[in-house]
Every structure is written in structure tokens, then in C-alpha cells.
């Protein structure tokens, strides 16, 4: 049991992100990012680089702003009424919040996998083909068939569904549905994949399959994952960012974060003293 009196950890001051938030070969770089929901500030001055072909894990207690931050990276927050963002977020040195930046194009470059598997109520084939059709990535049926097959193979789902491509995607198991969502995302060949707690609704076996898939995908894609499971962060990511009440407390190599955290708050969290 946690002694409430002892929870003075909350009072520990956070002034600057510790560790190594900046790297050389950055895919994404954010500077002085503040996010507000109406008057309530959800993110305070987040500065971080996300490396190419790396997996970065974002951890932290519930409500710390890690999901909000993730959703800033493909402007999914645009759809939320009252949400506004200040600061710079650059993808390949392009400001994604620039007024000439098209959010539709951005979301084709930065794909997203959600917490709850959300296949469309269509066939497995149509689920994977939808993005490609939308952006005109396949010029004919044969190319589209190939693309669907390739994506399903990459997502490690093809063997299981090859005979039922035209059955509804919603009839699959939870783990299969999530892999279908991943297949759907990689079918449009994005540069970055954002994953918002992709395994929190899945059992350990399905989780293990998806984690393996993530490691495999990181050879080609840059992946940012929000997770509640520290073990998962430790297993799959190269770098880990720790969020606390809207502040980015620490960014470091995953190894360092879990073995030798620089910040007191990080240590408290990973040792299970709160969270």
C-alpha cells in the first residue's frame, strides 16, 4: 500500500527535461510544445527528438499527456474541439502545423494505430485496401491485390486470413484485429507509425506477437508508442520518454531509463512507487 502522506513525489520540481532529448538524425523534432484543451494546459513545453527507424516509447501515469502528445504528431488533435497547440513540431524539418501543411497528406505520412482495435465494418481485404484506394496507390486490381497481400504478410496476418479475405474484419479476434489495423496502416507506406497503447486491449500472447511485429517494422518505419506497460517499453524501444502531469520529465536510452534513471520522478515511477 502506498502511504498517501509519502506522496510528496508530486512536489518534486520539474524545470527541464533531463537526459538526452535531442539526437542528430531526427525524424520528428518538437520544440516548446504546449497543448491546451480550452483553458486547461495538457502539455508543458515539450522538447524532444524522435530518431529515424527507432522505436521510442512514451510512458507515464494516466493523464500525464503522453497520448495527447502522440496525437499532436499527426494532428489528430485537430478534430477535438477546443484543443490548440503552440510551439514547433517538425517532420523532416517541415513544420507540420504550418498553415500550408495539409493534415490529410500528413496523416498519410504519419500513420496511427489506436488503443482499441478499430477495423472498419468491411471485409478484411477492403480494410487493407481502403487507404491505398483513397490515395490512389494502386492503379489496377492486380496491384491492389498484391499490396493487400504484402501488407498482410508484413503484419504477420496473411497466413491466418488468406482464405477469408472477404469476410468481415470485425469477425477476427482482438489480436488479429489489431494486426489488421497495422496492416491497414502500413498499406499506405507511411514514414512514421504512431501507436497509442496498441496492446492494452489484448492478451499476453497477442501482445507478444504485436511486439515482435513492432521490432520488425522498425527496420523500415519510425515508431512512437505510448504504453502503460513498462516491460513493453523495455522490450521493444530504443529510447524512452517519461511524462509526468504534462511535463516531459526525462528522455534517455531505454536501458538507462530502466536501470539508472536520472530524475527522481522517473525512478519513483519505474520502481512502482506511484503510477
Amino acid at each position, binding site marked *: 500500500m502506498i502511504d498517501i502522506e509519502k506522496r510528496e513525489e508530486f512536489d518534486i520540481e520539474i524545470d527541464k527535461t533531463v537526459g538526452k532529448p535531442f539526437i542528430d538524425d531526427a525524424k520528428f523534432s518538437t520544440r516548446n510544445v504546449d497543448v491546451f484543451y480550452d483553458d486547461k494546459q495538457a502539455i508543458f513545453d515539450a522538447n524532444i527528438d524522435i530518431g529515424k527507424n527507432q522505436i521510442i516509447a512514451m510512458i507515464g501515469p494516466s493523464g500525464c499527456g503522453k497520448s495527447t502528445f502522440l496525437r499532436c504528431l499527426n494532428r489528430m488533435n485537430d478534430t477535438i474541439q477546443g484543443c490548440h497547440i503552440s510551439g514547433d513540431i517538425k517532420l523532416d524539418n517541415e513544420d507540420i502545423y504550418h498553415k500550408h501543411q495539409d493534415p*490529410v497528406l500528413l496523416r498519410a505520412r504519419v500513420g496511427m494505430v489506436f488503443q482499441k482495435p478499430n477495423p472498419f465494418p468491411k471485409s478484411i481485404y477492403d480494410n487493407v485496401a481502403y487507404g491505398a484506394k483513397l490515395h490512389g496507390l494502386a492503379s489496377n486490381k492486380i496491384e491492389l491485390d498484391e499490396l493487400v497481400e504484402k501488407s498482410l504478410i508484413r503484419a504477420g496476418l496473411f497466413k491466418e486470413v488468406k482464405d477469408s479475405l472477404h469476410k468481415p474484419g470485425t469477425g477476427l479476434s482482438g489480436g488479429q484485429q489489431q494486426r489488421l489495423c497495422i496492416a491497414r496502416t502500413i498499406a499506405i507506406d507511411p514514414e512514421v507509425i504512431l501507436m497509442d497503447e496498441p496492446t492494452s486491449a489484448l492478451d499476453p500472447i497477442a501482445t507478444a506477437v504485436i511486439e515482435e511485429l513492432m521490432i520488425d517494422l522498425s527496420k523500415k518505419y519510425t515508431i512512437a508508442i505510448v504504453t502503460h506497460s513498462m516491460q513493453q517499453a523495455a522490450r521493444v524501444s530504443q529510447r524512452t520518454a517519461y511524462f509526468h502531469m504534462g511535463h516531459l520529465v526525462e528522455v534517455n536510452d531505454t536501458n538507462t531509463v530502466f536501470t539508472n534513471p536520472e530524475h527522481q520522478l522517473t525512478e519513483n515511477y519505474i520502481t512502482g512507487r506511484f503510477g
Partner: protein
Amino acid sequence: MTGNTTEIIKLKLAKRYAKEKRFKLYGISAIAVSIAFLLSLLINISVTGLPAFQQTYINIEVDIDSKLLKLDSQYSEQELFRANYSKVIKQSLKTMFPGVKGRKQKRALRQLVSKSAIYQLRDFVIDNPSVINTRQSLWFLARDDVDVFMKGGIDRSLPESDRRLKDFQLVWVDKLLAENRLEKRFNVSFFTESDSREPEQAGIKGAMIGSLLTMLVTMLLSFPIGVSAAIYLEEFAPKNNKWVDLIEININNLAAVPSIVFGLLGLAVFIGLFGVPRSVPLIGGLVLTLMTLPTIIITSRAALKAVPPSIREAALGLGASRVQTTFHHVVPAAMPGILTGTIIGMAQALGETAPLLMIGMVAFIADVPQGITDPSTVLPVQIYLWSDSPERAFTERTSAAIMVLLGFLIVMNFLAVIMRKKFEKKW
């Protein structure tokens, strides 16, 4: 748990179960009462209305005499059309019932058959000119009083002055019955004729076509307008905007406006301002569109709201634009609900009378409308008109028309169920 707590819970348990049982009983009795009401309504309507699906016919030996027809040996088509068929029928009846004296009785004799007999005979002769100067045994529609008598609507034991059929008429009817010259047959003309002052000739075809055309106009206007409005308000309109809120409140209020107000509005705006002709399906459809729109908008919005937001996120996350997200995923997913709402709105419109009275659809119209700008009436208004008619034979026709209207409504609701099943998707 301590023994004490268990005791306390046990004590209350019996009471809790009794409460549950009581509540179940209330529910069941409420359902039983409503079913009883519904059944008594349906039985009442069926018992009154079913006889209308049969009609009495009279068999007459007709002497188609060219002299009576006032036709020469050579005649033109026009002369044949204008020939005096009424005289032929009168004479034939006189032959069948010799010894009828007095103007009153002669007139009563003529009124055994419907006025339509003249036209029936005319069409028969025009189709077969060879029957002229022969004797034919023909079946004609009987007058409504005879029909009512045949269906048991006239009590012989009443004093003569209280009966529609007098003693001498009863003698004729008995004679006809004895000679097997009176027969009840399926009432085809109820479905093939329009309204008439003579109950035995009145049918609902005109009202049915009028209803169909009116519904067509209503459907074509209210579905696209209502669904578009719902999609805009639900998917695109800014939230927490005072104008949007104002529109929302007003739509909800419109749904509660008495329908006759829409009729007055239609009269003032469509007829008064825009000069749309009155008592045509077009104006009926316009007014019913106004009345149906709030229902369609509200149900469609509810259906759109019920689509899980995760589907919108999935599509947006793949780089679909908002319009694509809406039309590729949200609207198809909401379609069952939208269609159900639309059909319920249409069913409401189909049964609506009050606003149509305001725009002149209550007129007596004996023709079947050919288009949306022909004067017409609709089923519920026809029911209203007939229920107001003094002739006894209109009573059963009123109920029969109600049965037809209910039939339409059941079919529409059935369609709604099928559509919902067909478009329903599992999540």
C-alpha cells in the same frame, strides 16, 4: 460478513423479491391492457370494414331494343354513345316487375340498380354492337340501400317509416332473391374507382394514387434535405456555437409543433406567396416535407451519433478527409438508423390529415390524379370525408379504407425492419 449483517439482509430479502414480482406484474398488465385496446380496435374496424370488400349485384333481363335506344338502322358511333340506355334499363325493370304504379314506386324501382348501370350497359353495347335488338341477362351494381339490406344492415321488424327500404321494395328484393338475381361478389370497383357521391360506386384508387404521389414528393424532398442537414449538424458544424445551438433547439421545437400549423404555413407561403396550385400532391408533399423534416433530422442525428468515434479516427488516421470519412464510413454505418427514421417519418406523413385540410386536399375529387399537379386527395382525408357522409353504406367503406391505410403502414414498418436488418453491421 458477520452473522448480524446476514440476518439484516435476509429480513429484507423477501420484501425485495415481492417488489420485483409486483413490478413485473405491473408491466405485464400494462402490456395486456394495451394489447386489449389494440385488438378491440382492429376487430372493430375489421368487422365494420370487411363487408365493404363485397358488393351486391343485380341480374336483369335487358331488352336492348333499338327503338327504346332511339337508334335508326344506321347509326354513328356518336349516336351509339349518346343512345338512351337509361330508358332501356327502366323498361327492363318494368317488365320484370309488372304492375308498379305511381311515380314514387316507379322511381324506387329505377333505384334498385346503381346509376352506373347506364354506363355499364353503354360500354357493353359499344363493345358488342351485335347485341342490339336481343335480350341479354346482365349483372349490374345494386343501389347502396339494397347492398346494405343484403349485408344485414336493414331490420325488417322496424316500422316502415324507419326503414330505408319500404315494404313494397322489400317485396321486390325478396322476389329477386327467390329468383337468384341478387348476388354478393368481391368488390373490385373499390380498388379501381375513385370517390363518388354514390356509395356503391365509391372506391379508393384516387386516394391511393394521391397518397402515393404525395409520399413520393415528400420522400424525394425530405430524405435528401433531412439527411444532409443531419450530417452537417452532426459531423461538420462547429460545436458549442450559439448559432448551431439555436438551430438545434428550433429543430427540436419544430418536431413538437402541431401538424395543422404546418398546413397553415403551407397555405400562407406555398400557395399564397409562391402560387403553388392547391389540393395537388405537390403542395401536400411540400407541407408534409416540412412536417417530416424534424423527425428525419433528429433520428438521423441520433444514428450518426451512435457510430463509434473510433471509426472516424481510423479513417482520419489513414489520411481520409472529413468528407471522405463521413461518406465512406460514418453514413453507411448510420444508414439503418437513418432509414428507419425516414420510414417512420414517412409513415407519420402518410397518416396525416390535419395539415392537408388547410391546403384544399379535402375537396371531392372523382378522378384519379395523373401527376403531382392534378387535384387529388389522400387516404386519411378520404377516410375523413367518408366518415362524414350520411349514407349508411359509407360506414363500411370508411372502415375498409382504414384497413387499407393500416395495411400500407404495416408494409412500411415491415420495410423499415428489413432495411435495418439488411444494412446492419456488426462491430
